[in-house]
């Protein structure tokens, strides 16, 4: 082991690949570095631990996504619908996407770490999986690679790497492929991995229904029940369909205090408030979406996944507690606005979060200015 270490340390033959060595080495063993100065003792939690916890929180959504992808195929083909076969079929479909996402993303991470001579940040473990889970199961693998490359390089590395990015890299990647390859990323044909099979997602069903109708009736007609949408047996992006799985992940993230509860609560509050407001203005000629109750909004589309896993990314979110509330609420508001008022595209979670990512520094700016004013007032008050 020590011999190997020498190769990568300063003066060694493979000195340049030190970040890669460090990543693998500390994966197996803790770094075991003594502190150099005060504080002499440190918390046992490191970034690796925290990031791995996000990945653990994603496991239910991943498993449900794999199972559902298989289930959708099998139920259309009329094949074996047992748990095992659905899972197997789903795994064949989803695993390559996850692997390609990790490999292509990992390549860029390592490259930048080597060139910039810094450690490989474990945040990539989360980004790679998040990105894979918001893709439709039918996406061509080369598009997976192109997307994650864009997300990592343009979304993160050109800003200076992890910790400096304005946008959530997984969402930046998703947005890129969405606008670059709309045929493979939107429409009714991409959600179930069977050729020629089209099925509208619940959001598309409501968006496409005639004016003045009942959204719940339209959904029932298309074969969607609240329970199916909550548990996740609907067509959609791999990881986003099951609100239940997202909730399990959320509970885990909140118990371990890895995610900010303020952001998630803000998102839910914004969504419920705005959809209630629209319900109040419901009329005979209003869009069908106006009649959709808030709790249906919560389980449809990528809201649960986005609010729990994407909006809570601490780097691209607001960094003040007040800011986190504002940021969360505005995401919720924007999700409903995009779903209802924008006729072109019924799903608004990705764009809402990206939009608020851009605004998060501005929100923080005002919160910090307010804090500074309060501080000065406190000091002045103490004088008197």
């Amino acid at each position: 082991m020590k011999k190997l270490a020498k190769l990568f340390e300063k003066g060694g033959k493979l000195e340049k690949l030190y970040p890669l060595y460090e990543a693998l080495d500390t994966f197996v063993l803790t770094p075991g570095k003594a502190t150099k100065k005060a504080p002499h003792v440190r918390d046992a939690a490191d970034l690796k631990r925290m990031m791995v916890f996000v990945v653990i929180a994603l496991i239910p959504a991943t498993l449900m996504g794999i199972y559902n992808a298989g289930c959708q195929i099998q139920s259309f083909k009329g094949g074996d619908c047992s748990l095992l076969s659905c899972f197997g079929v789903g795994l064949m479909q989803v695993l390559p996407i996850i692997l390609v996402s990790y490999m292509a993303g990992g390549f860029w991470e390592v490259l930048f770490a080597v060139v910039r001579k810094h450690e490989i940040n474990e945040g990539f473990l989360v980004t790679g999986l998040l990105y894979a889970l918001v893709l439709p199961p039918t996406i061509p693998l080369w598009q997976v690679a192109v997307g994650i490359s864009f997300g990592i390089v343009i979304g993160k590395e050109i800003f200076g790497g992890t910790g400096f990015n304005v946008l959530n890299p997984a969402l930046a990647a998703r947005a890129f492929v969405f606008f670059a390859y709309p045929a493979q990323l939107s429409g009714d044909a991409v959600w179930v991995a069977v050729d020629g099979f089209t099925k509208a997602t619940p959001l598309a069903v409501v968006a496409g229904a005639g004016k003045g109708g009942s959204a719940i009736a339209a959904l029932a007609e298309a074969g969607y029940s609240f329970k199916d949408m909550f548990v996740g047996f609907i067509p959609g992006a791999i990881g986003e369909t099951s609100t239940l799985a997202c909730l399990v992940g959320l509970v885990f993230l909140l118990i371990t205090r890895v995610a900010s509860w303020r952001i998630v609560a803000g998102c839910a509050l914004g969504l419920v408030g705005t959809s209630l407001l629209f319900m109040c203005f419901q009329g005979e000629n209003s869009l069908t979406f106006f009649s959709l109750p808030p709790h249906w909004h919560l389980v449809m589309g990528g809201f649960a996944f986005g609010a729990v896993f994407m909006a809570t990314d601490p780097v691209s979110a607001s960094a003040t507690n007040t800011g986190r509330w504002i940021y969360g609420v505005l995401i919720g508001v924007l999700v409903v606005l995009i779903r209802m008022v924008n006729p072109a595209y019924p799903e608004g979670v990705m764009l809402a979060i990206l939009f608020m990512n851009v605004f998060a520094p501005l929100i923080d700016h005002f919160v910090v200015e307010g804090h500074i004013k309060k501080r000065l007032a406190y000091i002045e008050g103490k004088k008197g």
Partner: protein
Amino acid sequence: MRLKWCEGFNPNAKSGLKDVRPYLKKRKSFVEVIQIKKGKDIKLKGAAEKQVEELDLPKQVAIQPPDFRGVRLRLRVKEGDVVKVGTPVLEDKDCTQVHVVSPVSGKVVAINRGEKRALLQVVIETDGKQETVAFKKHPAENIPLMSHKEIVSCLLEGGVWPVLRQRPFSKIARVDQKPKSIFVHAMNTEPLAMDVDYRLNGQAKGFHTGLDILAKLTEGSVHVCFHKEASSDALANFPSSSKIKYHRFDGPHPAGNVGTHIHHVDPVHKGEFVWFVEAEDVLRIAKLFVEGVFSPVKVVVTTGEGVEKRVYKKTIIGAPVSHIIGEAAKSNMRYISGSVLTGINVGAQGYVCFYDSQITVIPEGGKREILGWALPGLNKYSFSKTFASSLINKNEDVSLDADEHGGHRAIVFNSVYDDYVALDVMTYFLLKAALSGDIEEAERLGILECDEEDFALATFACPSKTDVGGIIREGLDLIEKEG
């Protein structure tokens, strides 16, 4: 040989009003409690018993210029010089009236230098006589009549000036400045720190004389900050001078930090200065005035799981760690002057730093564990809730080694800091301003109220292993340099 020259420090003496001056009032009920909510106590293994052991005079002591950060010091002695207790050893290049004096009588045997010939240590061998330089005596009742100028010159001449430090920047106070107030640091909440209340028991007379002297140095007030439960005679009663104010603090660390006290009592704004002084040094000041001698007495508490005998030890300034601990040095242990959060690794052969009153010995870090990120971690200590240990409500003291427990990464979890900083600052934004050298923004965010030690817990908790306090220190250094 027993130390005969020590002042009568006897914490075990019954505290009562009998030996206290008649104008003293009972305190307690008057003083409101300032409750600190943010922060956390690290219950480290190895607390000291409340018992005092008097040590013999050490063979050698060291005066260490790096203890006086931010001040350029030069030598007043050379190797072979004979010194007495109170002989100047170092002086401030920028203000030659300020000196650091010898705590012993004896001979200068070594002057140790580091890189670029920076002064590291002046080692003095003791002759056992403890001959003192005689300074002018000022009886306690005369002090109210003395002028500011007389007080200052007496402090400078007697060599106790370096005990006065200023905020911002935490360095020796400037002679030409009058601070807006002076803080007496009479509590300490750092892990395993000395109980200052216990230290002051039986010292009411000297402590109150010292406060009267300090009151002469400022137009504002002298703020004595101590723990809610303090009961020593020095803190349970107070002189009726309107310039001396008492404040009780309660809560987890950093409730005992001087920065926390200043922030909650009399915060500093740009262009303002406050001074602070350790409670023990107030006794030193009083002794100089009343008896006309420099008192080198220092009580050091030995703590941490690496020490067998953990008690309060009465010794002198600059004493060697090995002498104070009095045990054979152990391998794989870290010997810290100060606490685990803010102390300095001096090694088993080192000396206690000038302002410290604690030695902590903990196991050295550097052990590697397999798959540390994945295991449940029943025995891991963490402020976060990511280890199984957080599910078990353990009230036991924890054993911590000097390990970083992770690699350095970019900051991702930026919300962990503020819960552990007891000042009203936004740590993450302050960090960004300090890192980018944006002095103006850092000042607006309150960096002048801060010091490295106020962020020790934030550094402890950071999963990215960022040296939060170090960055704040660099920011302050930059501000000082730019004037």
